[in-house]
């Protein structure tokens, strides 16, 4: 009954540790490399100016603004639609054929590579709708792209709302819409916010779909009422797209790494936020 050595066990255990080690070292390595090379190049003027050919300076403020713009447009469009669709799927659809079709198409949308969204967005929004390379075209394209994320995450959140709440509300005589508004959505809110944050992550990280739709402009936002809207019509590189531009040209790798560091920090924040929410979700 006493302990003995099992070589096969040890070997497999070793493989598992090795794989995990590779994954961890890689993650830490990538992170450290980017931060070490990037953070020193981040300066106040780097974050708060626009690049200029005339003076030869580089700044990423327009990219930050463009990123915010695209995040905002995308969410403004896709969040209400996504939540509405999720509500339909979980609360109204039942198991009908229509629901199956929608779920299948949502899966499909989720699986389409972003380059295809880029192609489609270019043909449909840029050329066909005449939006040209513009932040608006980029936002519209991404709205379709993040739709499945929002639908699915919201659906999960709605499904995980205690089914007893539904019965309880209906059992008292609440209408379905009332039940959704007063019980379902508040309970699902952390999940919905998670969906939104996940989408932000996706938008911030996107490049292929944006290069052909939102383009690579680096124009400063004009702080006039008209300018705020005009900005939608100009092309605009998000941070990620700009990173791609600089990296490919290799003119100043410090700039590429600085943007990469900014992006990594954003991703860290996003992950942190989702974690926090998920925790609240579980307790609530």
């Amino acid at each position, binding site marked *: 009954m006493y302990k003995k050595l099992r070589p096969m066990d040890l070997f497999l255990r070793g493989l598992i540790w090795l794989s995990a080690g590779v994954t961890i070292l890689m993650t830490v390595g990538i992170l450290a490399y980017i931060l070490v090379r990037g953070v020193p190049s981040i300066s106040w003027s780097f974050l708060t100016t626009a690049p200029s050919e005339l003076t030869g300076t580089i700044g990423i403020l327009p990219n930050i603004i463009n990123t915010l713009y695209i995040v905002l447009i995308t969410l403004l469009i896709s969040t209400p639609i996504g939540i509405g669709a999720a509500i339909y799927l979980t609360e109204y659809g039942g198991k009908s054929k229509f629901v199956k079709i929608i779920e299948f198409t949502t899966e499909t949308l989720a699986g389409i590579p972003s380059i295809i969204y880029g192609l489609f967005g270019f043909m449909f929004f840029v050329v066909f709708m005449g939006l040209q390379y513009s932040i608006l075209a980029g936002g519209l394209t991404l709205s379709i792209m993040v739709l499945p994320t929002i639908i699915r995450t919201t659906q999960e959140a709605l499904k995980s709302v205690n089914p007893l709440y539904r*019965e309880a509300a209906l059992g008292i005589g609440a209408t379905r819409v009332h039940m959704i508004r007063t019980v379902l959505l*508040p309970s699902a809110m952390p999940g919905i916010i998670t969906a939104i944050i996940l989408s932000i992550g996706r938008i911030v990280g996107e490049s292929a779909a944006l290069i052909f739709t939102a383009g690579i402009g680096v124009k400063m936002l004009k702080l006039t009422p008209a300018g705020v809207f005009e900005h939608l019509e100009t092309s605009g590189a998000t941070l990620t797209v700009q990173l791609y531009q600089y990296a490919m040209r290799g003119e100043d790798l410090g700039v590429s790494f600085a943007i990469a560091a900014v992006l990594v920090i954003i991703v860290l924040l996003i992950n942190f936020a989702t974690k926090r929410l998920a925790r609240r979700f579980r307790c609530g």
Partner: protein
Amino acid sequence: MENIMETKSLHLYYGDNQALKNINLQMRKNKITALIGPSGCGKSTYLKTLNRMNDLIEHVKIEGQVLLEGQDIYDPKVDVTMLRKRVGMVFQKPNPFPMSIYDNVAYGPRIHGIKKRSQLDELVETSLRGAALWDEVKDRLKKSAMGLSGGQQQRLCIARALAVSPQVLLMDEPTSALDPISTMKIEDLMVELKEKYTVAIVTHNMQQAARISDYTAFFLVGEMVEYADTEKMFSMPSDKRTEDYITGRFG
């Protein structure tokens, strides 16, 4: 004796599967009717047909009549939300909403159009008193209902149901999740409630049925085998199967 609810040759099918077979039952006003029977016999299903909670389930087919004070509740003209206001339900597992105690109780009245604060306050108090919970929670009405104990939550659910002043209160194993002390409190409560309400309760606990109910219906695989005065049912059941079940020979 007055009947408040009545089912006439009720058949219910989940898809192809018949869950209720020809149920004829008259529920007496201001009495407690207990539904007993082994698991899966259709007790919950029957209860749900009484306030149309089955409407939420797909592929349910219902035949026969369910009358509330003589009106057929499955009449297409019936407003389901009004029906459910009149026939309230308390579920097996306490299911308070994740909001404050006050809002839980006020939820129903608000739905049904009561907006005035003073009126709501009053309703919340009377309902909580009615559910024998007022003293325990009166100082924490604004606190989340999720912080209550299981027994308190269940009484809160009862208060919530009372707040819309139903005529009939359906309770599906309301004490199965509770400890003995909470159970006792809720049993006492039911007995009090019957002065103003009619109560139907599903229970697995024979002693409970015997203790609190006036009438008992025994269900078996979708059929109602016997329906009688509780005392009679437990002392001399007329059906062999009832006897077997009550004496614990199966189930």
